[in-house]
């Protein structure tokens, strides 16, 4: 194990740290930067609970070495709200009853954000596809999909 100088932008702020080469992005976020909104559900890229946005695209942070995303712009769930002003997507999740235990939600919100940032008027199918890498054990997905639809309507009007 060697060390590496990590430099990137996380939620709009520059970060520069010495890290171990074997540090996963997930652990950089949770353990080093104390951004614990990103969750480890499976550790193998099969559940999406660890989803973050890197340079505009969603990825599983459990499958990335922090070193791989050196020099990129990373957004975690903590970076979605604007200070105390929550994002319309977050409000829709609340309004539509899309949150139960909450474990899948950061990943779901980020997947929704990545979708709506690129495609402000998605079809139901496009919404389902965009969330297809995020597993939820509580809700049965219907309210989550409705929340994304709701957010899309709000944001595009």
């Amino acid at each position, binding site marked *: 194990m060697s060390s590496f100088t990590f430099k990137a932008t996380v939620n709009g702020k520059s970060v520069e740290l010495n890290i171990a080469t074997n540090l996963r992005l997930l652990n950089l976020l949770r353990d080093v930067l104390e951004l614990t909104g990103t969750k480890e559900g499976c550790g193998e890229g099969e559940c999406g609970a660890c989803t973050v946005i890197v340079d505009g695209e969603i990825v599983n942070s459990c499958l990335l070495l922090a070193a791989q995303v050196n020099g990129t712009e990373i957004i975690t769930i903590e970076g979605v709200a604007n200070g105390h002003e929550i994002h319309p997507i977050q409000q829709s999740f609340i309004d539509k009853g899309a949150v139960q235990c909450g474990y899948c939600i950061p990943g779901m919100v980020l997947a929704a954000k990545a979708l709506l940032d690129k495609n402000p008027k998605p079809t139901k199918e496009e919404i389902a596809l965009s969330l*297809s890498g995020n597993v939820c054990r509580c809700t049965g997905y219907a309210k989550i999909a409705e929340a994304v639809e709701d957010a899309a309507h709000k944001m595009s009007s």
Partner: protein
Amino acid sequence: MINVGSYFRPQTIEEIYELLSNSKQPTKVLAGGTDLILHLHKAPEPVNIVDIRGIDQLRSIEEDEDKVSFGSMVTFNQIQMSKIILDNYKALAKAASLVGSPQIRNQGTIVGNIANASPAADSVPALVAMDAEVLIASKYGQRWERIEDVLKGINNISLASDELILEVSFKKIPGLRSGFAKLGRRNALAISRISGAVGIVTNNNFITEARVALGAVAPNPFRSHLIEQALVGRSLDEVISDSVLEVASLAVAEKLGNRASAPYKRQAIKGVVRQALEDILHV
């Protein structure tokens, strides 16, 4: 814990060659990492990582008159969205679009899919159907090899420790219409239980040339000349027929012999080939 030794991010291909040939410790090329990172969890000793994401020329998808080619950092998502791929060989775009999840597709690469050599790799049947080749390179030279020839069994690809794949290429087939179907336990985040790529060229509604490759049947995806021959000469109006699907069933039975999965896959292949043909005919 992930067993990583040193991490390198070379800026040129020559640097990659040097790192691979000079290393005295186990060294792996890292493209996307969706497979490699998981292997590193189980690595018995530290592995040095050569991350090739810094080399821009490996991210391009190109075509000329005769062929299509793309580099080893090209992701599933890029292939899925590429006009060059969609115009020349839809089945590959379709296969790429069905891998894993959006997150996996943003990070994972086609070349990683090939190099990991899983029997269920989804992009590989699509590539093998077209006799696609890979450019294998090291400090000592480069050579093109057919993908079907370098895959040597489950998770086994014939690549020396100082070699890497730089590019994939396949020859265009004018007039080709193609489709791909995958059968998994669920609609996303699923490993294929069977997959099939089908390409056809037609003249006056009759099939004059066919390319068929199956995945997750044999240790590596393979071209099925049996099914191809059953398609040639057929009219499009009756290509989705019991006789064609029976041949698909026979092709699978031949490969699987007495394996436990044989009774299931001999039947399921009919649905997969049907869906691949429907994908072409937009049924």
